[in-house]
């Protein structure tokens, strides 16, 4: 049975719908990210799950029990969830220990028990020595750990995170990301994670729900989202891609100046002769100095521009007889001169026909 189920969720302010008919089901212990550009409704969805807002239509259930509907909602404090906020929301008038112990104290746990569990969780997030400090004396990363400890110590049914890393600097961000995932794996909490950063979502999630303009575009594993995007928005929003138009034939897709062989894609139920849009990841394009022996479908191309990025080359190439420009990513060793010729072949992974 699913742990948390969102069904036909709608949120309207006046006439404008911020969340439109959203369906989502999380399994017990699953880590799901809500990913989308700012203003797409992902935070609104999270706040409805938390109980800070009532949905206009639809429902939210946890363990089969109705939590939210248009006619009323269980208040946040009765949901057994916990949340990590963008600002961390560490109470500045309480010490680290008081912050972390707060949830246990309002649950009327015995004092000794509170002390023990606070000490335990602070050890886990490596803040044991800071138990009597006030938040103003902590660094951003330490505050983040306090927020994590405070949220986890109550063993929540569902852990909610609202862009928790957006206020940290880049190298700390990766550490905290790993920390969050580690704690998730250790405690097995069902987790909903809101972010607008796709690499963050890819790195941390079991599944990612891509949301755009209040609608769920696609929910899938990071690998499937990247390599098998099902909408144009997902293809463009997740990573970089070449979006090309073509016509589906029996054995290939004919694009302007080149073709994609049938074994490189799934037709997605399209009929031969119909126009299709194809997403080709730059990593799916390989450049060769000579025509590859095993791949007769390789296309001769001109190198238009190139950029060296240290970890890889970024090429912009055009098939010989065409003005179509394609981005291709190549290893540092694969150096081609600007204006020179090369042969371009394709990988099956990273090419998707969009519906």
């Amino acid at each position: 049975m699913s742990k948390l189920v969102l069904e036909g969720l709608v949120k309207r302010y006046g006439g404008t719908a911020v969340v439109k008919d959203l369906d989502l089901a999380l399994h017990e212990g699953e880590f799901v990210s809500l990913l989308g550009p700012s203003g797409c409704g992902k935070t609104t969805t999270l706040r409805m799950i938390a109980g800070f807002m009532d949905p206009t239509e639809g429902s939210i259930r946890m363990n089969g029990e109705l939590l939210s509907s248009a006619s009323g909602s269980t208040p946040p404090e009765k949901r057994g969830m916990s949340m990590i906020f963008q600002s961390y929301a560490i109470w500045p008038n309480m010490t680290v220990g008081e912050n972390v112990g707060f949830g246990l104290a309002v649950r009327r746990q015995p004092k000794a028990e509170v002390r023990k569990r606070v000490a335990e969780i602070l050890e886990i997030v490596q803040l044991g020595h800071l138990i009597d400090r006030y938040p103003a004396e902590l660094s951003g990363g330490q505050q983040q750990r306090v927020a994590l400890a405070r949220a986890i110590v109550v063993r929540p049914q569902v852990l909610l995170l609202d862009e928790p890393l957006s206020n940290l600097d880049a190298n700390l961000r990766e550490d905290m990301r790993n920390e969050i995932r580690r704690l998730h794996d250790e405690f097995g909490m069902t987790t909903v994670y809101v972010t607008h950063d796709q690499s963050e979502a890819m790195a941390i999630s079991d599944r990612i729900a891509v949301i755009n303009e209040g609608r769920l575009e696609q929910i899938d594993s990071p690998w499937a989202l990247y390599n098998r995007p099902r909408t144009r928005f997902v293809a463009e929003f997740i990573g970089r891609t070449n979006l090309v138009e073509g016509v589906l034939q029996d054995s290939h897709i004919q694009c302007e100046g080149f073709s994609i062989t049938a074994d490189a894609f799934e037709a997605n139920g399209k009929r031969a002769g119909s126009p299709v849009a194809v997403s080709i990841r730059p990593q799916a394009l390989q450049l060769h100095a000579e025509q590859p022996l095993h791949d007769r479908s390789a296309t001769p191309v001109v190198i238009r521009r190139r950029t060296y990025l240290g970890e890889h080359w970024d090429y912009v190439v055009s098939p010989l007889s065409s003005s179509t420009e394609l981005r291709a990513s190549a290893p540092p060793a694969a150096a081609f001169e600007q204006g020179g010729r090369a042969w371009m072949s394709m990988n099956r992974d990273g090419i998707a026909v969009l519906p």
Partner: protein
Amino acid sequence: MPALLTRMPALLVSKRRFHLDLTAVGFLLLIAVLVFLVANPIIRMVVESLTGADGSISLERYAQAFGRSRYVQALWTTLYLGMTATAFSLILALPMAWGVSRTNMPFRGFFNLSVLAAFIMPPFLGAIAWILLAGPNAGWLNRVWMDVFGGESGPFNLFSFWGLAMVIALYAFPLVYIFTKSALDLISTELEDAAFIHGAGRLDTLRRVTLPLVLPAICGAAILVFLESIALYGTPVLIAIPARINVATTQIATFFEFPLRVEVAAAYAMPMLATTVVLLVVQRLLLSRKGYVSVSGKGGERRPLDIGPWKWLLAAYCGLIAAITVVVPLVTLLQTAFSRAWGRGLSLDNLTLDNFKAILFEQATVRDAIINTMVYAGSAAMACVVIGVAVAYVTQRRLLPFPGVIQFLALAPFAVPGIVLAVAFYAAYAGPPFSLYGSGLLIIIAFVTRFLPISATAATAAVRSLNPELEEAVRIIGGSRYTALSRVVVPLLSKTLFGSFILVFIIATRELSTAVFLTGPNSRVMSVLILDLSEQGSYEELAAIGVVMLVVTTAVVALGMKFVGRDFMTRR
């Protein structure tokens, strides 16, 4: 209002399905309190003014209020007085604000402090000091003049229109100073440097860059000073009545003499109320003009402008202001309070503590008034803080429908002059069914209403600066809204709340115009008592009461500065 009230139960019912939020009941109570404190008195006053002698709706009270040329003349006099006092205030405040904020004038810290002292000084105490200083014949300044130049009389006559306007300005100008200095403090030196580099001289820069930038603030402050001047009661009673000048507030007071004509007073108060409302709207528009975004507090260093030898002239001018607003009046009050007879001047055999002994230990009326003042001001300040924070929280967190209405009710008393509020409270609660006349409770609730805008504004700013996520963090982890309020919101706001408690307390201890029609024999406060005693002419005891009042006020201000911050009274 009716729409508001009918929606309220629906709100409760929809929540009840899962959980009855008890705090919602508390907030319903808040609406009731606001209606009682604000809406009802004002509505009752308007209704009374429109009620004829036979109980029907009629304009006969207005005919009585504006039927005599003497009554109408008082309104015109008030208008001229307000404008004159405002002009004086600008002349006093602007050079000083510029000098302290922008230039290398010496003694800037002292001058700043002297304005704060003038701000704290109750205007009627200043007026009494100035009667002692510049009263015709007997005033100190006149006697010094006669000693030096000879002659039968001195040139100063405080009991005149100009004397009245000047004394009002002496204790109203701090408002202009505070507004202007705050605006000047926000202008970066780079703006002036830019004018210099493009060829403007110092005077040109002041006239064409600096002044236009702070003009909205100056105009806004001028409006406030005008409104305060026309609503003042104590100073006119002390100075205008002997000078045979009739102003609006003293005229309203005559309607409360025998035969009591509250309805006429209500009608007569309407022009004042309307003027205040209109001017406050204008002030708000002026201060919210977006064209002056450069006053933003960002952008580069600020260094004082070197004005060369002019700094000594400016310092002399500011010194003169400090002398006539604070130093000389204070010395005069102290000298009088410790004298057997104030006219005999400074000599050892004139020195005595009898006045303090009399007021503190012998005269029950004075002692009671001091106790009353402390109790009323303390209770009112406490209630203001509680209601203010409730209003701020409810409106900022949108816990009830129509937050705008709640906010409006809490801030509306700001647009009601104190004496008009006194009329309104008399009309609403003096008689049955409440029959509160003469009780301390009536004065406390009138004070609460009068000062609620101060505490509500401060609390609103404070709540707005609190990230709602701090409260949401409490809720999601299992705490109720009440837990969030008591464990997070109130502790975090405690400093601000303490600051507004002290501010309201200080202002309430000297409030006169609201109290004047509402006090009975057993509920007199110090300010009213001082006014009563001034009619008997016992200036020595009067000054002693004033000194007690100033000592208490100064101690409380010092307390506020220590715990809340040096600028807690003048923060904008």
